[in-house]
Each structure stands twice: as structure tokens, then as C-alpha cells.
């Protein structure tokens, strides 16, 4: 069995209560960190672990922590990003509802490391029931002396606040999240200044994903080096993968980074293979934003090497033949899926979720959606396909925040790998619009 850091006890009955969580080694990391370590030592362990941001960007968490400005007399904040909204990703939702104390323990340890006395967990508003689970868990932890004033008699104070969002994907972008937390529209900020210098309430702030923070208790208990020993190269530790789409066993799986894509997709321990009677057509490996891959580039890289579930291996070949691990939203498409329809669907998502602040994203996402809608519904022309590529290029890299890139990549990659299918929609509009009809002639299917 693969090493489990986050989900080892997740199915233990009652693990969402303090008692049961404590019985399974819960909150020992808080005791260890607060009583025997300095904040600098905790940061050092995080650095040693090599754990990278699990929200999608993959930036080393310890390094992010070390950028935090520490001016005298100014409060510092830790904000947990639980705004999980990337299509294909539902791991944080699962983790928080099943084992809320893990995140809370991680928040205490991390807040201590950063010298924060008030920390926030920003949860997407739709997950109100998870917010209530977290709030109850926080109450329990407070009763037991793990939160509040003078925690465990160490003199360290921490207050945890769970903040609901209001329905906006863009608030997963860290500066938009901070704006939202300040009670404003979720418009991302121009950077610099980065949150580490001027974040929440213009104070130095670290924003980390739920899964990243949830790794901290294990790292404190076992050491950063032990964490770094798991995985391959710079992809250390384990990763939660949200598996969805046409597979036999959708769900959230914890993998050791370095498992092959083939094993993850086909073994019974994980996805269990493509659903019965069907075969693989395409894969989105890291949430809807990352480039889609055709079947022949999924389990092998362009060089014929096994593709692994790591940051590096998935991006092998760049955007020409690779993709990204992103947030670990693993969406599998079998041969019954229409790539054009799916691209339109994703495009509609980004159109709907654009904050509207900067012109390329505000106008470009809508334009792409409309053109894709036309193509999907049999009213497209050949030059629409090139137009889409051109629009995506004019958005990519030119926006305030990464939503522009996230909207551009799925469109550009779908056309890169499935151009024939787009063309078929133009040349065979009647067949293409027949319900359930899917282009079957793609070379990518071989």
C-alpha cells in the first residue's frame, strides 16, 4: 500500500470529532511545535519537506513562507484557500468534510510558524455545510485548549475564523480571495505588491491551499526530510487527486507523487480503468485549466517514457505534448465524449467566472464561448478555428491574474490535439449536432 499522509484515518468512524481524531494521534503536532520548536524551526521543516502549493501553482510552500515580511508592530495573517472551484477538483471539499481537525491542526502549526494570531479559512459559500463542520471542530479544539488564548500554556494565541465566499471561482486566486475577505468584489489585485508584503488589510499575508496546510501535522511529527523522501525529485510527498469522468471508480485518492499515470488510471487501487466497454479518448490531468491530452500522450510522454503523476513528468514536452499537474483534477474522457462540446462547456465556465476587470479576459472569454457555441451547434466556419487560437493567444499572459491563461489553455490545447474534430463540426454540421453523435475518426483515438 502506498503511504498515506492525509487520508490514513479518513474512514475511521467519528474521525470528524475531536475525541477520535485525538485518539489517532491528532494534535500531537501542535504539542510538539508549540512546546519544543521555534517558529523558525517549523518553517525550516516546511522548507525541507519540499511540499509544493497544492492549489494548482505548485510553488514551494516553505519558500513562500520565507518571503513573508515581518515589520515590527504589524499583524501578519495566514489565510487558507478553501475556495476550491476548479472544475474537476473536489479534494479539499472531501478532506474538510471528512477530517476537519486535520486542517485545523495544520492551521495552528502554520500560524505559529508565521507568527499569525488571527487566521482565516476562506471556504467557498456553496459548501455551507462544510463550514458548519469546520466551525464545530474549531469550537471543540477551543474547548480543549488548542485554540484561543495561551494555547497549551505556551503563551501563543490564535483565533481561527471560517469565512464563507459567495459564489465566485475567481476568489480562488489569492489576491481576489483577500479582496473578498475584506468584503469587496473578488477583483484580483495587480502584483506587485505580493501578499507576502501587502496582503489582507495591507498586512503581510500568506495564502495556502487546504491540502498544503493539512500536510503540516505529519511534517512536524515525522520531519521534513521524511516527507521529502516520499515522491520523485522535486515532486515530494503525496497528493490528493480528484478523479472524475468516465472511470469505474470516481473519487478522491491520495497518491505518492511518482505513481505512473497508467497505474493511477488503470489499477483497482485508484480509478479502476475507463468504464466498462469503453476506451480512453482524452485526459485533463490537473483541473479544467490545464491543457487536455489525447490518448496517445497520456500514459507515455512524446519520448516514449512512462508518464508519471508528478509536476515534472506531466509537463514533459511543454504545452506541445504535455500538460500540468495543477490542482490534481483528473478528468477522464472516453470515446463517447465530444471534445468540441466539452471545450465550449469549459469556455462557458471561464466566461461566467471572469471578474471583468481587465479587457482581454472580460471580452475574450465571452468571445471564445460564443464562437465555440457556434461551432458546436453547427454554425461554425473553418476560420473560426484559427480565430479561436488567435483570441486565446491574445488573452494568454496579458491579463491581471491567471484566469486569462486558464481560459486560453483548454481552448488552445483542444484545437492543438483535436483539430480534426473541430473541422468535422464545420464540414458535417448536421451530424455534429445530432444528439450523442461524436467524431470517431481522430488519429488520437488509435
Amino acid at each position, binding site marked *: 500500500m502506498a503511504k498515506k499522509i492525509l487520508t490514513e484515518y479518513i474512514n475511521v468512524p467519528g474521525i470528524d470529532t475531536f475525541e477520535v481524531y485525538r485518539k489517532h494521534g491528532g494534535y500531537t503536532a501542535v504539542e510538539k511545535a508549540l512546546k519544543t520548536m521555534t517558529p523558525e524551526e517549523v518553517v525550516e521543516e516546511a522548507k525541507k519537506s519540499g511540499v509544493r502549493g497544492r492549489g494548482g501553482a505548485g510553488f514551494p510552500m516553505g519558500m513562500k513562507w520565507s518571503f513573508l515580511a515581518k515589520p515590527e508592530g504589524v499583524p501578519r495573517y495566514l489565510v487558507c484557500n478553501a475556495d476550491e472551484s476548479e472544475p474537476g477538483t473536489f479534494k479539499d471539499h472531501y478532506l474538510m468534510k471528512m477530517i476537519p481537525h486535520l486542517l485545523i491542526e495544520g492551521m495552528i502549526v502554520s500560524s505559529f510558524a508565521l507568527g499569525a494570531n488571527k487566521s482565516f479559512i476562506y471556504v467557498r459559500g456553496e459548501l455551507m455545510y462544510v463550514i458548519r463542520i469546520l466551525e464545530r471542530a474549531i469550537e471543540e479544539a477551543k474547548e480543549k485548549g488548542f485554540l484561543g488564548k495561551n494555547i497549551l500554556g505556551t503563551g501563543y494565541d490564535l483565533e481561527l475564523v471560517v469565512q464563507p465566499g459567495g459564489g465566485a471561482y475567481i476568489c480562488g486566486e489569492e489576491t481576489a480571495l483577500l479582496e473578498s475577505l475584506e468584503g469587496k468584489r473578488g477583483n484580483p489585485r495587480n502584483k506587485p505588491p505580493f501578499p507576502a508584503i501587502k496582503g489582507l488589510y495591507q498586512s503581510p499575508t500568506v495564502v495556502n491551499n487546504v491540502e498544503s496546510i493539512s500536510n503540516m501535522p505529519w511534517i512536524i511529527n515525522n520531519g521534513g526530510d521524511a516527507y521529502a523522501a516520499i515522491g520523485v525529485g522535486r515532486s515530494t510527498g503525496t497528493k490528493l487527486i480528484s478523479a472524475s469522468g468516465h472511470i469505474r471508480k470516481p473519487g478522491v485518492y491520495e497518491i505518492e507523487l511518482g505513481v505512473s499515470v497508467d497505474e493511477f488510471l488503470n489499477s483497482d487501487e485508484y480509478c479502476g480503468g475507463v468504464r466498462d466497454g469503453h476506451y480512453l479518448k482524452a485526459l485533463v490531468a490537473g483541473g479544467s485549466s490545464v491543457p487536455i491530452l489525447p490518448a496517445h500522450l497520456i500514459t507515455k510522454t512524446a519520448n516514449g517514457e512512462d508518464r508519471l503523476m508528478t509536476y515534472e513528468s506531466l509537463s514533459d514536452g511543454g504545452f506541445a505534448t504535455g500538460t500540468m499537474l495543477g490542482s490534481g483534477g483528473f478528468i477522464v474522457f472516453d470515446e463517447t465524449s465530444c471534445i468540441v462540446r466539452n471545450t465550449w462547456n469549459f469556455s462557458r465556465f471561464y466566461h461566467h467566472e471572469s471578474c*471583468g476587470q481587465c479587457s482581454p479576459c472580460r*471580452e475574450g472569454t*465571452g468571445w471564445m464561448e460564443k464562437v465555440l457555441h457556434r461551432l458546436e451547434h453547427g454554425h461554425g466556419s473553418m476560420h473560426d478555428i484559427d480565430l479561436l487560437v488567435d483570441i486565446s493567444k491574445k488573452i494568454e499572459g496579458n491579463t491581471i491574474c491567471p484566469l486569462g491563461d486558464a481560459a486560453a489553455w483548454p481552448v488552445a490545447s483542444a484545437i492543438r490535439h483535436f483539430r480534426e474534430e473541430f473541422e468535422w463540426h464545420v464540414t458535417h454540421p448536421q451530424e455534429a449536432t445530432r444528439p450523442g453523435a461524436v467524431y470517431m475518426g481522430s488519429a488520437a483515438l488509435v
Partner: protein
Amino acid sequence: MEETKPTLFKITFDGIEVEVEPGTTIMQAARKIAEADRSNDALVPPAMCYYEPLKGTGGKCRACLVKVTQGSAKDTRPMPKLVPSCITQVQDGMVVENTTNPAVLEARKGVVEFLLINHPLDCPVCDQAGECHLQDFAYEHGAAKTRYEEERRTFDRHDLGPYIQLHMTRCILCYRCVFTADQITNKRVHGVMHRGDAAEISTYIEKAIDNDFSGNVIDVCPVGALTDKTYRFKNRVWFTKPVDAHRDCPTCSGNVTLWYRGEEVIRVTARKNEWGEVKEFICNTCRFEKKNTSDWTIEGPTKVLRSSVISANKYRADLVKKPDFALKLADSQYKPIEDSREFVTDQDKIRQLSIENNDKANHRSQLAEKN
């Protein structure tokens, strides 16, 4: 005097070296180059949302993106992405490419296109025409045809009261008017509602924007989204003559520009600098209530940029003085512009004209495509 000279940063912008104070943005440095030598005006990145007098503006429209090919003397690496010049501060030894970089020009062309796809192109009935930054931006950086075949976005109408006319379809969401209301009025009642391409300037509930300085949102608007209701359809800007004037005003500085048509003051605005930015914000009384020459002390004709459409009339044959060849040329080429058309004030008619014009624009672009 004591010497407290700060260390200056030396930067290279499109091959021109300039020394600026730390904290200066790339845009400000470029403007400094142009101010020193007006022949460099065209090097300055266009600003559609940035507005120096208003804190916090900029970074949104992406019109002013430039390429930083060297971050600083210390760190000579290029910046990976194009950066908004209006909010990016210079570093010593920074090298910036604007008009000399093809990627910048391509991105800028993209921004023009994005700003225009949902724009009604109703310039023929728009009061802003002739002094519209979007017109200038499109003319200088855009393509001659559109690739947009979809339906253009429309909004429900909102009435902002007796002074300010809102045409949301023309808005490019620069947020300048929001910053204006925040920074120079005491209680903001309008803002940006909704999001994405449905975002709109609105008061949400029907309510007039009503305070002593509300009229300034008209001056800061780069397009015809917010215009002066008291000047509505009165004239075209190129037929009018701007004159600087002042009055003793208890509320504001009283320094304004009067816009004459013949002997009649048809509009009052704040004075603007060469970048189209208001120098001093003026009050609504000066702007909307004082339309008689007798209300004002006239200072003289407003200095108009040569590029401005207002200066077009100086080519009128009957106004050209010397030399002789110019007189002859003007005589043969330029006719005095007369505006004897009746004023359209009927809302439905205007709307209809706007729609027709939009259709024509789409039609024209299709023809262009075919040719």
C-alpha cells in the same frame, strides 16, 4: 538651497535614455521623454484606464502593456510577461521596449479589438466623438476591420439624473468614474455591478448621482459612456472653440474651459493637460449652471494639441493666413465645415440611429472581409 538631490534611476525606453526619480512608473518616464521632445509623443503607451490625478487607477485595460527586456542593472533578466507600464515602477538600468517590440504591438492590437467587439461603434451619434480616447486608440493601434460576428452586448438603461447621461454599451470599464466618486465626492452612489462582461456602471437602484462634484465623472470618462446631458446633441466637438476662463467660485477653483459655438457657451469642462487628464476638478455649478459669457472672465483660447480634431478648423480655407501655397491648397482642399443639420433629441430616434449604425458597421466589416 540645501542639496537633497535623490539618486536618479536611469532607464532606457524605446532606445531613449531618461533619468527619473525612484518610484516613477514606466508610463510617467515615457511621458517625461515626450514632454522634453514632443516629437516623441507617439512613443508614450496609450492609457485607457490609468489616470494620474486619481489614486489607484491603472492596470485594468492592458492597453499600455510593454516589454521589459532588462529588469534592472543588477538583475538583467527580462520580465517574463508584458507588464502594464502605468503601474510598474522603474528600476535603475531598466530597459523597456514599447513601439519597438512586435509582441507589444500585437498585444495592443488585441486589446483594441477586445475593447471594440462589444462597443456599439455609434460614433456618429456620440457626443464624445472627436475627443474619444477609444477612437484615438483604435485609430492608432487597431485593425481596420472586425472579426467579431456575434451579437453585441446591451444593457438596461439607467437614468443618472438631470446632468449625467449614461450609455453603458460604450463603457470600457476603466473604473475611473468610480475612483472619482470615491476620491472627490463625499458619498459614492454609483459603482460597478455584476461581473465579467455583464459588469456595468450603475447605481443599482434608480437614483441620480447628485452632489457638488458629480459632473467630473464626465470629464474622466475616456469614452462616451458618461456625457454631459446639458450638452447632449448640441454639437460636434470639432465645430466648437475651447476658451480658458475662470470665475470666483465658492466651491471649486473656478478654472474651466468654455466650449463656444459662435457666441454661445454650449459646454463647460475642467481644464485638461496634454494627456487628457483633468488639472483641477470643478463643481457642478460651474459646469452646468454657468453658460453665459458674462459669468466668466475669459483668459484666451485653450491650447489645443495639433493632433486634436479641434484643430481641424485651422485648415479652413478662410482661416489659413500664410504662406500663399497653403492658402491655395486650403482653398482647393478644405471647405468650411457647416453644421446646419437639425438636432436629434428624440430618444427612440437616437436609439434607432444607433442600431442602424451598428448594423452598418457589421456590414462594412463583412465587406472588408470579402475584399
